[in-house]
Structures are given as structure tokens and as C-alpha cells.
């Protein structure tokens, strides 16, 4: 049976076609496996900063990003806020003191840090942090487990991701939550 099938394929010169199709699939798979981590990798930042160490030290998310409670944007802490702690607090690991020194020299040069934005939605998406935080959505449900990250890493926040959660809310809220104009205008 297998023999005759193989012979048939060979007679019709279909084997090269099948081989080419298989190679294409394998190439796509390998390409995806190689490229996708790159897409989701954390972009380089101007100053070494590790979320994990700050979370481990007991710093809450909203301590540095208080905007989430009252406004659309979370906000990044100013150098002032960084120095509020780092002027007196020394890192647990003495090796990290070199990084903190960079922060201090930045502070002394009176130049703000130009962080690279990680979570950026297209122009046509209007996102508001406040109602999400008010509804009790945990930060890590959209931003990933920041406690294990150095620099913040991108998270796959596409429309399906939003809708999957919006559809699961209370029925009287769903009408508004899945309505187009809630996010797009």
C-alpha cells in the first residue's frame, strides 16, 4: 500500500512539491521560533533598572506608577522620586551600587532619564488605566509577571486579549465593555 502510494507520487513527480511544502512549513516554524522572542524581548533602556529587585524589596507598583488610580496613564517616576529612596537606601547586593551610582550621576547632571516606552498602543486605541484598577484588575494580568523581569517586557496586548476579559464581565456591563467606541474613537 505504502509502496504503491510512493510509486504513484514518484510517477506524478509530486515528491519535490511535497518536499518543498514541508520545507516551507519547517522554515516558517523555525523563523517564528527565532524571531518571536526577539519581538517580545525587553528593549534596551538608558539606565540599568531591574523591576525584580524593587519588587523583592517590597515596593508596590503604584508607589512608582500612581497615575493608574486616577488617570488614563500610569506614568513613570521622576528622577526626584528615584532619589527619594536612593539618596539614603543602599542596594542589598553591593555589586549593584555601581548602577545606583549611575543614577546619582544622572541626578547630578540635572538631566531626566529618557526611558524607552515599552507598552504602546496604536493611535486608534484609547486606553484608560483608572477603570481597570478600580475594577480590581491586577497589574500582572496585562503586564506579565513584572516581579521576574529586569526591564519591563512587552506583552501581547492585542484586541482579542482585551475582549477575552471584557466579555467575561457582569452581563449588564458587557454591552458597554464590548462596544467599539469604548476604546476606538
Amino acid at each position, binding site marked *: 500500500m505504502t509502496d504503491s502510494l510512493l510509486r504513484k507520487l514518484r510517477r506524478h513527480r509530486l515528491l519535490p512539491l511535497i518536499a518543498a511544502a514541508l520545507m516551507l512549513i519547517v522554515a516558517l516554524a523555525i523563523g517564528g521560533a527565532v524571531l518571536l522572542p526577539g519581538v517580545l524581548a525587553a528593549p534596551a533602556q538608558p539606565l540599568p533598572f531591574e523591576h525584580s529587585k524593587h519588587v523583592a524589596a517590597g515596593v508596590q507598583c503604584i508607589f512608582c506608577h500612581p497615575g493608574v488610580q486616577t488617570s488614563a496613564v500610569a506614568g513613570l517616576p521622576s528622577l526626584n522620586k528615584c532619589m527619594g529612596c536612593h539618596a539614603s537606601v543602599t542596594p542589598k547586593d553591593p555589586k549593584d551600587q555601581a548602577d545606583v551610582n549611575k543614577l546619582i550621576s544622572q541626578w547630578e547632571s540635572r538631566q531626566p532619564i529618557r526611558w524607552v516606552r515599552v507598552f504602546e498602543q496604536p493611535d486608534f486605541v484609547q486606553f484608560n488605566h483608572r477603570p481597570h484598577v478600580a475594577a480590581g484588575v491586577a497589574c500582572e494580568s496585562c503586564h506579565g509577571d513584572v516581579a521576574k523581569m529586569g526591564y519591563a517586557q512587552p506583552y501581547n496586548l492585542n484586541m482579542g486579549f482585551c475582549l477575552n476579559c471584557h466579555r467575561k464581565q457582569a452581563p449588564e456591563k458587557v454591552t458597554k465593555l464590548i462596544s467599539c467606541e469604548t476604546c476606538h*474613537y
Partner: protein
Amino acid sequence: MAEAKQGNRWTMVIDLDKCTACQACVIACHAENNVPTVGPEQINMGRAQHWLRIERYWQGEYPDLRARYIPVLCQQCQHAPCEPVCPVFASMHSDAENINVQVYNRCVGTRYCGNNCPYLARVFNWFDPYFPEPLNEQLNPDVTVRYRGVMEKCTFCIQRIHAGADRAALEGRPLRDGDVVPACAQVCPTDAIVLGNLADEHSRIHEFVKSKRAFALLEDLGTEPAVIYLKGGESHVS
């Protein structure tokens, strides 16, 4: 659908007896909603991109001739003709706000809705938007800058509706009059434009809507506009 009344019922009242056709609302709308200016050539081709325009017409014969005008914007129909014809749901009825919304990032640009709008309230982005200096410095971050090939129209300043609702929620109270003031109403020197929520029993919009001077544009088409015009007696401009 007119039957299913849930959520807000945004209604705009335009008092034509108060309107002086000063066009401040047109400018405010351009500024608030990132509406591009298209230049004299395109205007001559009839491609002015105003979401809100003042239509002028004449009444009477020469010696006894009167200028009349009416601000026309998207009427936010409850039975909107633009909605069923869109193949991709880019023009759709919002059940939450009961207005007609246009989803720019969904629009593929068939322009069918534009043909089917009896009020010609819809405008198309024929080219990429162009904001000459210094207009590029004043774009509103709360509103999408539309790209070429999509339809757009008045949204009743939905970004301000959301901002008002957000503020009310932050303060832990229901929406009330004054929380949402669209750009055109904000700048109107005679307070001729008022936006209110019919779902709010205390809104002053109720007394306007019940006025004997109230009418809707092209009422006989049965589109159930959410824009109500007030007009009675002689206008002060003749």
C-alpha cells in the same frame, strides 16, 4: 434600535433662534477632533472636511430676502441609514451611549455610508491628513488622527463623554448636566448648542425637547435623529 433603551441617551439641541452663524463651533470642532484642513483646492472640489458645517440658504424674493442658516452635523440617528450598509461594522450603533459611532481602524473605505447618509454628515479622508504649522502642535491626544481612506464624522465629542463619565466615576456620583460639554457647545457664544442626556431625569435637555419649537431634520425619513432643532417665529437676523 429605538426600542432597546439602555445606557445613556445623548441628545443635542440647537436653538436656531439663538444661532448667529458665527462659525465658532466649526473651528472648535476642527481643533478638538483633529479634523484636518484640506486647503483651497480641495475645498473647491467639495472636499471640506467639516464635521459640523453651517448651511446658509435664502428665503423670499429679492427685496424681501432673508439669510437663513442651520448648523448641520451628524444627527446620531437612532435608526441610522449608514449602519446597515457598512460591510464591516465600522459604522455602528453604540448601545451604551445610544449614538452612532464610526470605528476608524475598522473602516475599509467603501464610502457606502456616505452615500446613504441623507444629511451628508460624513466626510472622507481623501489623502493623508496634513496639519500645517502650527496646527501640528495642537493635536488632541484623546482623538485618533485619521489616515487616508477612512470615513469620519461628528462623534458628539465622545472623548469628552468618556472623560466626563470617568470624572463622575472617580468622584463616585452619577453623570449630570455639565459633565459633558462638546467643543461646539463650549465655544457657542449664545449658548445655542446644548448636549444633554435624556436618560438623566434632571437634565435640562428635557424641557428643550418638549418645546413647541422643536423639530428634527428630514423627520419624514424616520431616522430618529438625536439632534433636535428649535425654531420659531422670526429670526433676529433678516
